[in-house]
């Protein structure tokens, strides 16, 4: 399946600086946390993820055509 | 020889370099005693970022009448016992980074503390043509 992965802020270092990746995956189903493992993004550095702009948890199943946005943890304000 | 180089486009104006230099060489956190001058301020015509660093031009070595500043293995060395506080090195230093102290002067000794602290690699040690 084809998906789009968006890594925000400092997290793009896990994809060598690329913020947006168009990915072709062998699987037809996997979870957000499995996808993050593939890029070695520590979940402790993630505040929350969005699938197609909706806030979802890390166990969310990804389908073909989805856009997954990964937001970094933020402190202060 | 390697000397300091400043990359203005990377500088964030945090002054950590000044603190690292004065801590290492003067034993206190005092930006005005640092042997470099990094400026990042908003002037009327916009943000001014400027760096004055020792590029090992050796002018101080040449002008010192007492040979109190010498270059050895690519590093400057200040010999306080020879210094007469004449101030010629301070006045003639092209980047104006020699600190005039009540006794003696402070010259950059290429200790690299500033570059080690710089969070954005705006200060680096690079080969200079000598």
């Amino acid at each position: 399946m084809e998906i789009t992965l968006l890594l925000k802020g400092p997290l793009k270092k896990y994809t060598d600086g690329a913020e947006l990746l168009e990915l072709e995956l062998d699987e037809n189903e996997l979870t957000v946390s499995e996808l993050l493992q593939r890029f070695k993004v520590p979940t402790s550095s993630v505040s929350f993820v969005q699938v197609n702009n909706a806030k979802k948890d890390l166990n969310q199943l990804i389908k073909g055509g989805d856009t997954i946005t990964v937001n970094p943890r933020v402190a202060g304000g | 020889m390697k000397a300091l180089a400043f990359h203005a486009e990377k500088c964030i104006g945090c002054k950590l370099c000044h603190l690292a230099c004065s801590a290492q060489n003067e034993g206190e956190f005092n930006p005005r005693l640092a042997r470099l001058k990094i400026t990042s301020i908003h002037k009327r015509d916009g943000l001014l970022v400027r760096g004055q660093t020792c590029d090992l031009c050796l002018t101080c070595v040449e002008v010192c009448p007492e040979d109190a500043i010498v270059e050895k293995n690519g590093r400057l060395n200040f010999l306080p016992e020879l210094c007469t506080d004449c101030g010629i090195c301070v006045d003639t230093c092209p980047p104006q980074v020699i600190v005039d102290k009540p006794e003696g002067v402070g010259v950059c000794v290429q200790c690299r503390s500033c570059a080690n602290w710089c969070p954005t690699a705006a200060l680096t040690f690079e080969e200079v043509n000598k």
Partner: protein
Amino acid sequence: MAYIDKVLRINLTNGRTTSEPLNKEWAKDYLGGKGLSIKYLYEELKPGIDPLSADNKLILMTGPLTGTIVPNSGKLAIAAKSPATGTILDCSIGGHFAPELKFAGYDAVIIEGKATEPIYLFIEDSNVELRNAADLWGKGAHETEHLLYERLGDVITLAIGQAGENLLPMACISSELYRQAGRGGIGAVMGSKNLKAISVRGNGGVKIPDIRKFSATLNKIKREDTMTDDNMWAYSDGTPMIVDLSQSTGILPTRNFQEGTFDEYKNINSEAVKSVLKAKKACFACPLACSNYVKMGKTEIEGPEYETLALCGSNCGIGDMEALIEFNRLCDDHCLDTISAGNTVAFAMELTEKGIHDFGIRFGDVENYLQMPTLIATRQGVGADLALGVKKMAEKFGGRDFAMEVKGLEIPGYEPRGSWAMGLAYGTADRGACHLRAWPASVEAFGKIDPFTSEGKAELVIGMQDINSVKFSAIWCDFWAISTEQMAEILTLLLERDITAAELSTIGERINNLARLFNEREGFDRKDDYLPTRVHNEKLTTGFTAGKSLPRENYEKMLSEYYQLRGWDENGKITAEKKKALNL
């Protein structure tokens, strides 16, 4: 040493300046910054004074970290009794003023009384001068700073603009053009004393034992704990990154908090700011450089920060970055707090659209919107009414249910209906609606904690309030998500005595209790800890928060639990046991 042990006291009424030792007992109990300035005010201010009278005092307070190489330690606390709320007020301002003051040889400056004519202060080491400011009065903060720099040479300046001179409850203090002690009318306190600016140059330094070893340890901490994923968002994006987070979680204040999402959010988000970015800027000793120096058209600023993008952008229905940047610049120059100014303009827009009172300005009306900062700061035209701030405007014109303020301080950029703990944080913050005393949105709306429940929220908010009070007293900027243990480790090295995380937690608790005690003495209690009724009675209708409100009973539950965990009575008053336990 980490403390200089010297406080400069300046009486503007008789022009006398004296110096005195820092109260070391208090410094042990309250560290510095926020905590110590509140302690001085609590001891020195008579209850019930008019915040704009000569009886109020303005305190500039550094902390033990100030002037050292410790990352993110560049901030200054400025405190007084607030003209906006009547509560205690401490603000935090970045830039380079705090270390410069310490290099001049002072831990703190206490400014008392009132000058008979406009003056500014020039402090260079032991030389302190009160100088005539007649030619600066009436000028914006930017021109004031430029003139003082040209006149005095290499100095760092705190200045007020027209808003401070005209005693607005939303007047801030500015430094290095784009940094502000923003909230609660701290700029009006300066204005009320006829004090236009304070310029400082310090030629001394801060000495600590074993400074090379200390620096080497801190460099390692900087690399391994400061410049990490948790904090580098400040460098990669800065606060504008929060726009997308708030939009996607439905807490981006829109059209005076009528909605939690904004259709034009892409015009005001981090990508939009980055498209006009010229350089990153940092405060003293900060490797994170959250500030974005931008240029668009003829306007350049450091900013706009998230709070400005939210309150002056989506909350005013403005999705035009160039207009926002210009509005931001005008606010900075006149010294208007953008959180309060954005809220006030949005409130006027809703009052106009609802037909309650016609201020001639509607949501998204860029042309009139850009007139507002100057009109408000100079109290001209409709600006005379908007200069009152949201609370007093509601008293005069109506719209109480949607006057978005707590204790008279306008609400920051996180919709409490989509982050219930944020609601509690606004209700219980010492200076009125504030997101800096605790920012639970970061772990609730933007994290894994359910935002739509009252469970566990009191404990969450208390923990954040206490740790932040320690940070703002040491002083660390809150953009370093530093643990209490790490703070204890660094302070132990610096102060040469064993400081534990538990001791710091107690200090944080003590500071919040003392702030509460100050407010209690001014007549504040439970009745003042409430949110505007819009939050309870109106449901949001779009995005992640569609159908959500923060029901009153849930809020009451959080508030009661908060008092209980704090050791306060049901009316929010500190019990005798708690006072004793905290040595208050």
